[in-house]
């Protein structure tokens, strides 16, 4: 599952072999400069919103719409942060997002790993049915559940609570499927050996399987975390009290205010993106694998 698509360690050898040596220098320059031009333009387009997010969150709202635009970060960062805290309690909001995403990730990952392992390793009764349900769950748009789940949460009295954000989606069909695919490739000889040594099934799973499967599980964890961190429509439906809002819901509220605090909004967006950016820098391989949801197997 590990992919080296972004940072190419060995990958450059896999690139399309160059024809360069057969071509004269001038021709090479003429042919290659447009390619670099395209890359530079694409990079600028890709980076402008990020740059503007950083610049805008360090300036006053009134400075964001003047001509010429500020092109360097300003000195209003702390004032913006203070206002953000004052208006929507952004510190609490960030804590909420972290809490929900971490709790969800821990439990959902455990469930996915266990179920994926069970499905890949054993042939118990009902395995086919369960596999079928999981495939169907993956194919059906999640939005079909909005109304009935909303009603379930309402009658359970779970509206405006975190269990409503976490529990209904704990069994993540996609995560389970990903893990099953991963464990199918697991060297069975290792499991057999542990059994012959008399290890219990749980011990085999814990001691032999989990350590070997660590990279896949890391990708699953990142995938799960991102999906909850970014989740918007469901928290929007479930959460009513401002002190329980997650970041996307809080940002949405700020847009709706009569006097929109634009630099605060940009700072909030920056803070929403920052944890993912850090995760990306630290766990690049697993991040890409996780984000692409197993679409790419290296």
């Amino acid at each position, binding site marked *: 599952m590990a992919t080296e698509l972004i940072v190419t360690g060995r990958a450059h050898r896999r690139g399309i072999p160059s024809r360069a040596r057969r071509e004269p220098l001038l021709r090479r320059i003429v042919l290659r400069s447009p390619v670099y031009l395209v890359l530079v333009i694409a990079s600028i387009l890709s980076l402008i919103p990020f740059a503007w997010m950083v610049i805008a969150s360090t300036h006053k709202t009134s400075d964001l719409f003047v001509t010429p635009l500020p092109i360097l970060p300003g000195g209003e960062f702390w004032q913006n942060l203070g206002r953000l805290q004052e208006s929507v309690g952004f510190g609490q909001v960030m804590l909420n997002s972290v809490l929900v995403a971490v709790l969800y990730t821990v439990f959902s990952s455990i469930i996915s790993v266990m179920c994926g392992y069970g499905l890949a390793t054993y042939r118990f009764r009902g395995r086919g049915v369960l596999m079928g349900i999981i495939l169907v769950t993956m194919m059906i748009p999640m939005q079909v559940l909005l109304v*009935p789940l909303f009603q379930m949460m309402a009658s359970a009295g779970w509206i405006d609570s975190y269990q409503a954000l976490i529990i209904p989606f704990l069994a993540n069909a996609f995560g389970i499927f990903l893990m099953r695919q991963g464990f199918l490739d697991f060297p069975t000889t290792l499991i057999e050996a542990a059994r012959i040594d008399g290890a219990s099934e749980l011990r085999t799973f814990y001691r032999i399987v989990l350590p070997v499967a660590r990279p896949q599980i890391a990708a699953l964890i990142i995938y799960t975390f991102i999906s909850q961190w970014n989740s*918007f429509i469901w928290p929007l439906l479930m959460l009513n009290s401002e002190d329980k809002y997650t970041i996307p819901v809080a*940002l949405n509220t700020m847009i709706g205010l009569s006097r929109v605090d634009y630099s605060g909004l940009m700072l909030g967006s920056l803070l929403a*993106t920052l944890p993912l950016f850090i995760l990306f820098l630290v766990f690049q391989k697993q991040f890409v694998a996780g984000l692409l949801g*197993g679409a790419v197997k290296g």
Partner: protein
Amino acid sequence: MTASLIVREHGTRRAPGRPRTGSGRLTARRQRPGLWFALPAAALLLVFFAYPLATSLLQSFFSTKGGESTFVGLDQYARLFRDPLVLKSLGTALLILVVQVPIMIALAVGLAYILNQAWVRFRSGFRLIAFLPAITTLVAYSVVFRVMMTTDGGALNQILGVFGAAPIDWLNNEWWARVAVIASITWRWTGYNMVIILAGLQAIPAELYEAARIDGAGRWQTFWHIVVPQLRPVLIFTIVTSTIGALQLFDENFILTGGGPNNATLTPVLYLYKIGFQQFDFGYADAIAWMLVVLTAIIAVIQFRILREKP
């Protein structure tokens, strides 16, 4: 999500002839732990997936307006065909599908192809920069684009102004709002698709390029006759994923335009949200949801058909 099924067909690493699970020989008693491993997920899926799914199908045959539930047969589904806003929301999805997806996939293929060339310097850096938009939270990037697309003095209009363009009323004009949505989604997802396509490109054996060169094929011939056919499964995968994404679009349009102006950027899910949770017309919202299910299923079937036939 349908898309992962393709991966299963093409990305399997199981050696041929190796049994599906290594434990076919185990006795029934030793198979039982499998059930325990799978039980939590199975129970949760039953309660929070199968049950609400059945409820929503059942409820789509009822009218829940006015607090009382009355059986109305297929009325809610008949309403779908009469409702101009359903048509409008499907129109938005279709527009994304016909305009945005091809543009995005073409850009992604182009970028991936360039960034797979051995002679391009700083490839890692360019790949990283192109991928960066894919790590942003949907709501956060939509907020940034909304602020940048402010008509008076917004960053986008000011940048365009440098090139002499008149200010554009991005979010309040029906056609510009559509352009704004298309531009935003393209910004967010091109790098994501590029990385998937890059993986596909790297799976093409170098011998094929070598053979094409010996046969005297030029750059374009190599691209059209070697690269594109080899990429076919990956391209279908990205197109299908993007199509399903277009059908399920919500966050961007909710934040950028709220579906407006004059419902020009209304999406099926946004409409479902409005019917279900602003008008609390649950039965009709369920019918809209099942329309999405059917459309997604049709796409999945088409995808399997296309994949099965050889080029």
